[in-house]
């Protein structure tokens, strides 16, 4: 399996959730775990380019697939990814717990809808929960991310 462009060993324990494999075995703790039943969305990663819940996949199921997590969006010293930049500019986060999931869902969404309507934005992030922001700034961030991505 390839994670953020790097070949990684297969998981051996079938009980290992993909979210736990990323966090505990690979040390990629940017992927957060909130509910472990698909409801909160903070564990969202890209699986062959499409956003999925990593808490609802077994790590063994990732064999041969390509994954992307929030750590892969930008290198430590490099400029931020346009979606990260937009969330920063528009205050799309407070505590940040939900943010990795919103970022990954938004990255995939904007590839498919580079110039989304407000309704499309609302639908795209409806599956991600945030206890802090009240969503207004998150919707603004996604709109700004679309602008920045089109400029990039």
């Amino acid at each position, binding site marked *: 399996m390839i994670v953020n462009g790097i070949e990684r060993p297969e998981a051996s324990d*079938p009980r290992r959730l993909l979210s736990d494999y990323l966090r505990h075995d690979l040390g990629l703790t940017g992927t957060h775990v909130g509910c472990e*039943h698909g409801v909160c969305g903070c564990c969202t990663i890209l699986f062959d380019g*499409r*956003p999925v819940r990593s808490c*609802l996949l077994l790590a063994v199921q990732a064999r041969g697939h390509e994954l992307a997590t929030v750590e892969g969006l930008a290198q430590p010293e490099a400029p931020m990814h346009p979606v990260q930049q937009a969330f920063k500019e528009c205050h799309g986060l407070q505590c940040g717990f939900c943010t990795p999931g919103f970022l990954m869902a938004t990255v995939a969404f904007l590839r498919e809808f580079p110039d989304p309507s407000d309704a499309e934005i609302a639908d795209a992030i*409806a599956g991600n929960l945030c206890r802090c922001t009240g969503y207004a700034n998150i919707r603004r961030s996604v709109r700004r991310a679309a602008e920045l991505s089109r400029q990039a």
Partner: protein
Amino acid sequence: MKPPVFEYHAPASVGEAISLLGSLAEAKVLAGGQSLVPLLNFRLARPAHLVDINRLAELTKIYERDGGVAVGAVVRQAEAEVDPLLRERCPLLPLALRLVAHPVIRNRGTVCGSLAHADPASELCAALLVLDGRVTARSQRGERVIAAADFFRGTMDSVLEPDELLTEAWFPATAGPVAIAEEARRHGDFALAGAARAGDRLALFGVATRPLLADPADPTRGLEPSSEPECSPDFRLHLVKVLVERVMQA
């Protein structure tokens, strides 16, 4: 909040999958995992074996047959939602899919997994019933085709036997008006009540232990919804009337 111990199998062919299901005790099929993995994480399901069908390329097709469209067991809900053939021949299915959970869940969840799971509030189960569709089940004992009207038994209970693999679902093409409407507490939640229409056929979901066909002129006849803290029987009956009116006007 972690799965119990199980043995994992990833068969490479349908033949291998059904021979595993036929020989292993307490085995469960793992499709999209969007219902099964939460049950494992909560330890509400404790299968001894999981038979993962996600590598079965044979079951990834959407194709035309017998005046309708067949959807293989590994077709994701998100793929079916935008499939041109389904949009043209069975437009109710894409409409129903848009009400299932959220886009990210639909990227992994399968159409057939929803049918096999048989949740009473499932939009897709109601769509199969109102369209008078069928499913195909295979086991080492052979293959059988089950009509929607005979398939759903009760809450998360179908006539599928533990050794059977649901290989595909078939939805007849429709020409007349189709519509689906539901009411949920929040967008993407399971519906408190819903109605699906194909021509003059009507199915209700979320109001009994399985989807039901109903008479558009008197949709609440015989309904006895259970009482839940968030939804009284009277409120549910009210929802049914409003939703039926909405889909019959479409």
